């Protein structure tokens, strides 16, 4: 079929089952936006390109589909950078489409020109610059294939402005031909048998669940595996929700702000089975002493993750969709009773650690504590509610005190730690999951970084519920300054006069305020009952710490306790 490059882009999106895109128009993509107009292709207009890219990310994380965003050349494209890097660090499938100046203008420092493929090379799984309209269909086919297969990630397609206007006979290829890209699905099944043997021999085994399990959508098989073997489980931040928080074998999150039980278990385990984890420094603390008594078995789809941070004794390279069911089949060669009888002392020890040192906090008279607020929201929320966070103290409190019940219900920037991620990601999640509760926990710092998206929420009537844990400080920065910088609160105080209720109302969003503990329940119920978007400004004390804490580079079993 004869059509313009811009129409071809729309056709490519349809062929890839893209049902909505997030974007912001500009000079280099005007022809593409004209095609969006003519075809009535669903498009969400955010208020900033960074909003568009985080929204595509939130959409992808909550649905498992590829998120798509569009920006113009130069500043439009550079505004995507933080969001692309965020998606890259957390392995989120995304296709970012950017306009580029016309072919004859490239390399001349033209108006709104930036070397976007150059800039994004280290933060994309792959990228393309399309200068010939005949390459469009192949490039889109490859880009979506690369974004969603193997270890997922963002792919950027930079398209010269004149390519959108050129005519072609559109034909979408059925297959991709990439000699250098053949992700391994099924690995070596002999290794699975070896893992089962190690598991049977181990006296203090531990399964460590990461974001890879969420991405592979393999939680049911994982649950069956851990229940059949009765093996204790810990998770990373990105692995929360893969096993319900209340599951008796789940000992919680490991790492800097992990539970006492999870950190002690890691330190004392003699077998650590990592499933889709990358042993980030926020998990390991001092690498030399991380799980130093344990044989490490590392399951990952990406061979480059093996031995990157932690040396693995056994590697299981392949898709968790293959390896976890294969493990399940293998362990079923023994009876469930035989597995359950193993290592009673270890299990008793873990239970004791958990019971003696639960996550807790000290209530204070007359003030709303962030942990209380999060627990209350958790009690009122639907079991399939999606929680989105920004980055900092509130993010850690949410990970500790919200009860995660299902996979893909925590959307958080774990790897890059992007402040400003929350509001636009929540917008994207609500677009992807209409009818589900989308709950954003944010801070007064992170919220301000992309608060313009309230305007988009209001226009689109997206009923995101925003809880601003407002302590008038950059909480995590202030906590570190309190603990490690002699209480020098250097530029971490936001003693501003920003009225978040008025800000919300000015953007067309309902605003509520909570200052007293007795107002908490009512405000949550009211917010959840309102049909549209709501901002709840919750005033919390400025000096509350996130605990327990392993100081950066410290040992996991040397936590600062309290709370």
């Amino acid at each position: 079929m004869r059509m313009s490059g811009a129409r071809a882009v729309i056709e490519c999106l349809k062929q890839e089952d893209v049902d909505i895109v997030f974007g912001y128009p500009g000079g280099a993509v005007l022809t593409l936006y004209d095609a969006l107009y003519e075809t009535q292709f669903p498009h969400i207009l955010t208020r900033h390109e960074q909003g568009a890219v985080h929204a595509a990310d939130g959409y992808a994380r909550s649905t498992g589909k590829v998120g798509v965003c569009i920006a113009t050349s130069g500043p439009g494209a550079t505004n995507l950078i933080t969001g692309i890097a965020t998606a890259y660090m957390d392995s989120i499938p995304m296709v970012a489409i950017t306009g580029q100046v016309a072919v004859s203008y490239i390399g001349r420092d033209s108006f709104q020109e930036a070397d976007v493929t150059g800039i994004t090379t280290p933060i994309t799984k792959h990228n393309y610059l399309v200068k010939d309209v005949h390459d469009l269909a192949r490039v889109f086919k490859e880009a979506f294939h690369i974004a969603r297969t193997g270890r997922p990630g963002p792919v950027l397609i930079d398209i010269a402005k004149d390519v959108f206007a050129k005519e072609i006979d559109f034909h979408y290829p059925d297959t991709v031909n990439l000699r250098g890209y053949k992700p391994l699905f099924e690995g070596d099944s002999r290794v699975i048998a070896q893992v089962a043997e190690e598991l049977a021999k181990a006296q203090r085994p531990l399964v460590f669940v990461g974001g890879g399990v969420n991405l592979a959508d393999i939680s049911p098989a994982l649950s069956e595996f851990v229940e059949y073997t009765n093996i204790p489980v810990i998770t990373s931040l990105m692995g929360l929700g893969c096993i319900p928080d209340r599951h008796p074998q789940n000992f919680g999150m490991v790492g800097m702000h992990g539970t006492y039980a999870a950190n002690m278990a890691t330190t004392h385990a003699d077998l650590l089975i990592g499933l889709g984890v990358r042993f980030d420094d926020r998990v390991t603390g001092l690498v030399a002493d991380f799980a130093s008594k344990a044989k490490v078995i590392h399951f990952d789809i990406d061979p480059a993750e093996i031995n990157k941070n932690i040396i693995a004794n056994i590697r299981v390279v392949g898709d968790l969709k293959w390896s976890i069911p294969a493990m399940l089949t293998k362990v079923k060669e023994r009876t469930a009773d035989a597995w359950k009888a193993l290592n009673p002392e270890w299990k008793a020890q873990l239970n004791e650690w958990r019971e003696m040192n639960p996550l807790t906090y000290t209530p204070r008279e007359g003030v709303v504590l962030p942990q209380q607020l999060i627990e209350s929201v958790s009690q009122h929320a639907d079991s399939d509610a999606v929680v989105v966070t920004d980055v900092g103290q509130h993010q850690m409190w949410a990970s500790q005190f919200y009860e995660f019940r299902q996979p893909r219900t925590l959307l958080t920037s774990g790897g890059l730690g992007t402040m400003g991620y929350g509001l636009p990601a929540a917008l994207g999640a609500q677009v992807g999951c209409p009818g589900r509760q989308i709950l954003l926990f944010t801070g007064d710092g992170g919220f301000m970084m992309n608060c313009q998206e309230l305007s988009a929420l209001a226009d689109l009537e997206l009923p995101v519920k925003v809880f601003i844990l407002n302590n008038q400080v950059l909480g995590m920065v202030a906590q570190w300054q309190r603990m490690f910088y002699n209480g020098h609160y250097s530029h971490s105080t936001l003693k501003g006069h920003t009225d978040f209720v008025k800000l919300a109302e000015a953007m067309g969003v309902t605003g509520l305020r909570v200052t007293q503990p007795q107002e908490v329940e009512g405000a949550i119920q009211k917010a959840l009952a309102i049909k549209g978007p709501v901002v709840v400004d919750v005033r919390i004390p400025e000096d509350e710490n996130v605990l327990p804490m392993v100081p950066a580079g410290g040992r996991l079993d040397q936590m600062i306790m309290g709370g």
Partner: protein
Amino acid sequence: MRHTLAVLVENRPGVLTHISGLISRRAFNIESIAAGYTEEPDTTRITVVVQADELELEQVVNQLSKLVDVIKITNLTETDSIQRELAMIKVKASSETRSDVVDIVDIFRAKIVDVNRETMVIELTGEETKIDALCEVLKDYGIIEIVRTGKVALSRGPIPAKNV
């Protein structure tokens, strides 16, 4: 330890940026990198010499392999291979010193590819150590500039790197 890697990549725009970007981002110790066309028009072959212990080498190979345009990586250090580098050296050579320089060139089986009143350009192909040795000797006469290609390598025997 030094390793010589044969990296076969798609001959596409941006591929060298992707490779050099990755090397600098991951802080790998690369000693030389040399690229050129191959027997297949759509394939470029890059010879990378990397200084790395076993674990670092594994990371270099795995991270490079992740690049979509990288088709295959073969470690030629592990196989019997021929390794060569080409250098051109511009050295001072006046009428008094010229014959001495020519003698040295003969001993190294190098070639003189340009001569004028004051200088000569010498071309030498060989293993790195041989080029280093020639440079060392020529220092006494005054080296004006040197250009080296970086190492290229090919395995011995009938099997090409792409099929190893």
